[in-house]
């Protein structure tokens, strides 16, 4: 019985951790490519879920099309924001980027919550598998958790192929490693910045769509991005697979803490872990950061 409970708790922990990891991935992607600290990933995540919801229930598109439309909308939004506003924060202090992205996130959240239909109630994306369970013997697993894990694995594989195999992926990596050298090799760094923001916003939107069946679609769903910072730091801030792994680790530890520690400890665990990691392994984690400076 306890082994079954453990497997179930671990599955939900990994699923939630995958979402932390995806948000952390988008954060690290943007940070590496543009040196901009983005505090709006949570708001992009929420906007992606609401865009899909609006296309599905407002405009009556079929769900898969609406989901694709939501992600596309966020990709375009990310690119547009980079072209108009975020480009100006390039090369300025972290504080400027931090406040700028926080302000943009506030605008995004404000814009969505000023629509009366969005702010009044919780919404649910009508996916077929919501509430379904998968039964293997005595083991009962929630379908939405398995879908999240499966989708994250697929997305991770696709991103790996993209970064290793395609010209655009290689150019983005070159740009993140050394922008000046990449520029000399004929990579358009400005275009790569736009591309990084588009990809980062799109990834956040995907995370939002995956989160939608687990929780509801609501205005505060972006708060989950606060857990993405510990995930990104645990993963080393400079590594994309690290960010994903950090997120999964965080989700597992959090779910185990919920099982074993008293009520409320679960919510503090990611931040205690962050503090501990920063204090105990500052060199290991900070090495990449120092080299970049």
């Amino acid at each position: 019985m306890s082994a079954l409970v453990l497997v179930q708790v671990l599955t939900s922990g990994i699923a939630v951790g995958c979402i932390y990891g995806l948000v952390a991935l988008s954060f690290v992607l943007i940070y590496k490519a543009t040196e901009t600290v983005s505090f709006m990933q949570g708001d992009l995540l929420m906007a992606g879920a609401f865009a899909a919801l609006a296309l599905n229930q407002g405009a009556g598109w079929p769900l898969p099309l609406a989901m694709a439309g939501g992600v596309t909308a966020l990709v375009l939004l990310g690119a547009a924001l980079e072209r108009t506003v975020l480009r100006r924060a390039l090369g300025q202090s972290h504080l400027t980027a931090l406040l700028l992205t926080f302000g943009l996130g506030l605008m995004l959240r404000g814009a969505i919550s000023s629509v009366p239909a969005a702010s009044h109630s919780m919404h649910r994306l009508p996916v077929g598998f919501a509430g379904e369970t998968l039964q293997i013997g005595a083991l009962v697993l929630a379908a939405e958790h398995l879908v999240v894990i499966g989708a994250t694995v697929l997305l991770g594989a696709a991103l790996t192929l993209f970064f290793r195999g395609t010209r655009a992926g290689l150019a983005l990596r070159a740009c993140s490693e050394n922008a000046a050298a990449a520029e000399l090799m004929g990579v358009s760094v400005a275009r790569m910045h736009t591309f990084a923001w588009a990809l980062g916003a799109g990834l956040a939107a995907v995370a939002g769509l995956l989160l939608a069946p687990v929780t509801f679609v609501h205005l505060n769903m972006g708060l989950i991005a606060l857990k993405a910072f510990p995930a990104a730091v645990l993963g080393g801030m400079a590594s994309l697979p690290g960010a994903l792994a950090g997120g999964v680790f965080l989700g597992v530890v959090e779910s185990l803490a919920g099982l074993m520690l008293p009520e409320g400890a679960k919510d503090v665990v990611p931040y205690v872990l962050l503090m501990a990691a920063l204090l105990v392994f500052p060199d290991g984690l900070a090495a990449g950061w120092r080299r970049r400076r």
Partner: protein
Amino acid sequence: MSGQASPQHAAAVARRLRTLSAGALVAAVAVFVLGADYALSQAAFVATYAIAGLGMIVIVGQCGQISLGQGALLGLGAYVEALLVVRGVPAPLAMAVAVAAGTAGGWLASLPARRLGGLYFAMSTLAFALIVEEALVRAEALTHGAAGLAVPTLVLAGFPVDASWSQALAAALALALAWIAARRCVASRLGRSWHAVREDEAAAAACGVDVARAKRAAFAFGGALSGLAGALYAHWIGFVSPEQFGLMLSFELLMLAFIGGARELAGALWGALVVVALPQAISVLTELLPAGTATPAGLESLLFGAVVVALILLRPGGLTASRTRGEDPDLTDTA
């Protein structure tokens, strides 16, 4: 010697006169438009925010660190004040304890600075603030959790400070004390070590500045001012709950320091004015819209975000700084 210093001195006096007359103009307009009572109660908030803002300016503008958790330090001060005053401790004594709690909190939050720099340290202050907020929610026996605590009126020397003019006066006095303390610190050896750390940590360390100690001192000082501001804020609002001191307040204070101009202490006052006045102005504006078109709360944060973004793009150095040279040609023309 006095002849040598006089042109600078004259310029400083002229600048101070300009600041004073601008301040007087703002005050006169506020009293005229809002009525004296309302303007005074808002002035109390502006002064209280300015105290916390001074602490932020010491951390951000003087020592060059980013604190994402200043709201939690205000929360510590506010809760200590509320819990002690409810138990019958005289308010000035409670305030001293609140300042001590803020100092201790700031010191504690700065401990990771011994080993971390830059963005990592900023993340650790965020983690600290989220832990404090969660602890305030969970310690229900003491804090009543998310339901919050009622705070009695501030009583100073047997005199209840409940009218708006007395609140404004008390806040202004506290601000004056905080200002003197901040000025003295910034002008001292400690302040010079802060500036050295801000400009270049390695060079500062090479010159014999204890970098970690300078950061600790900046956070302890910023924490003390936050504790004081939190204690006053608790009395003005009359109610404390953990959500008041969350991430939004921390960001408001960062914006305050940034908008006002973090290099100069005067930035705290201008930033506080903007941060307090802006939401009010926006809510007046949104009331003008026909009812039912949009949710007012959403519009308010939309406009607040828009103003913040615009200010950062147009005035990267803050309101007190002259326009700095940016990369974009249309930002470099003179105002």
